[in-house]
């Protein structure tokens, strides 16, 4: 039995234990913390499985920002000591049996999957990599081969922000800010911005890219906003709205531009296929705009619309 085997065995068991503890924790705050830890361990598992991009994204988005979202939701929960009304009608045993049987069926089905994929998109994608304008496969898939997905994903983010703004009730922010935290957030900002743009730039050749960079940027901004700093960053400001739209707009403009450049009579037109000489520049432009848009959108999703503090 090698060390690798034990590492994976332990990591898997740890994931299950953390998930169970999240579900069963008596206090909601403990559940949220355990979920964040679970996210970090999941990122570790993905790194083990050769998905460095995803490990980065999960650590930043899945664990970090979802954790921040859950914590700010936690702050709004009523502080009742009485146990909340149990809405689940199903008896615990029945629910347990149902979940165990469904999980077993799922596990059995997954176990049947062949170890060699019957057909994979990978060889075709690797073949096309040279003409995609980027050297990293994941970036090429996201911003060239399957650019539609990414465009619609940016739209989903925008939609989530609009929906959140529609339903959210304005809330008073009556937090006391710890002076040390305020100082820290200012010191952290340049470092996080630097790392974010490094990750963005590295995305062309190695794991990294717009989503990870956007999440890092959002982390920096969320820390600032939660400490009551940077009050001009709110949805009311026109430049914030413009930057939030920038990702989708850059995508659409690049699409129109390449449509115009690729235009040839009597040939099927392809939406979102970049002309080869411009591919790298277009991808970089879209990624830059998308990073800013993702960062600001995620920030506003987490921070919401608090009443400004007199700091």
């Amino acid at each position, binding site marked *: 039995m090698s060390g690798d085997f034990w590492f994976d065995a332990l990591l*898997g068991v740890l*994931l*299950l234990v953390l*998930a169970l503890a*999240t*579900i069963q924790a008596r206090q909601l705050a403990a559940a949220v913390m355990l979920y964040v830890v*679970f*996210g970090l361990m999941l990122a570790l*598992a*993905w790194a083990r*499985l*050769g*998905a460095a*991009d995803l490990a980065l*994204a*999960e650590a930043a*988005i*899945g664990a970090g920002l979802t954790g921040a*979202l859950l914590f700010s*939701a936690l702050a*709004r*929960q*009523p502080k009742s000591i009485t146990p*909340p009304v*149990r*809405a*689940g009608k*199903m008896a*615990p045993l029945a*629910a347990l049996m*149902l*979940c*165990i049987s*469904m*999980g077993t069926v799922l*596990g059995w089905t*997954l*176990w049947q*999957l062949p*170890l060699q*994929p019957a057909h994979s*998109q*990978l060889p075709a994608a690797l073949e096309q990599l040279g003409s995609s304008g980027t050297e990293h496969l*994941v970036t*090429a*898939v*996201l911003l060239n081969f*399957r650019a539609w*997905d990414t465009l619609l*994903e940016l739209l989903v983010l925008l939609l*989530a*922000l609009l*929906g*959140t703004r529609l339903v*959210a*009730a304005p*809330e008073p922010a009556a937090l006391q800010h710890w002076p040390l935290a305020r100082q820290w957030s200012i010191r952290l900002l340049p470092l996080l911005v630097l790392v974010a743009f490094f990750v963005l730039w590295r995305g062309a050749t190695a794991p990294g890219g717009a*989503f990870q960079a956007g999440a890092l940027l959002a982390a920096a901004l969320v820390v600032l906003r939660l400490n009551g700093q940077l009050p001009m960053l709110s949805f009311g400001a026109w430049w914030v709205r413009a930057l939030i739209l920038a990702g989708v707009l850059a995508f659409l403009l690049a699409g129109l531009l390449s449509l115009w450049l690729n235009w040839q009579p009597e040939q099927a037109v392809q939406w979102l296929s970049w002309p080869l000489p411009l591919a790298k520049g277009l991808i970089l432009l879209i990624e830059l705009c998308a990073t800013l848009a993702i960062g600001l959108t995620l920030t506003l*999703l987490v921070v*919401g619309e608090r009443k400004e503090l007199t700091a």
Partner: protein
Amino acid sequence: MSLVHWYLLIAAALWGIGCYGLIRGPELLRRIIALNLMGAAVFLVMVTLAARTEPADGVLHALVLTGLVVAVSATAFALALVARTLSEQA
């Protein structure tokens, strides 16, 4: 048992745990967390399946990356709905 099979089984078990939390979770917030656990299990399946080839399948990775961002968006919206529900009740 190979690495792939091991993580596939973990994912199935995670999904079951998340499903239990979704059914039983007393608070709305915990149900959202449980739903996220189920989503994480699905992503784990995809990442594990991507690891079957050498190098790992970047196409599947890109799909999961898209899924992650969509999951966060949906979670944020769900949390906003919960906040509204709580403030209406109060």
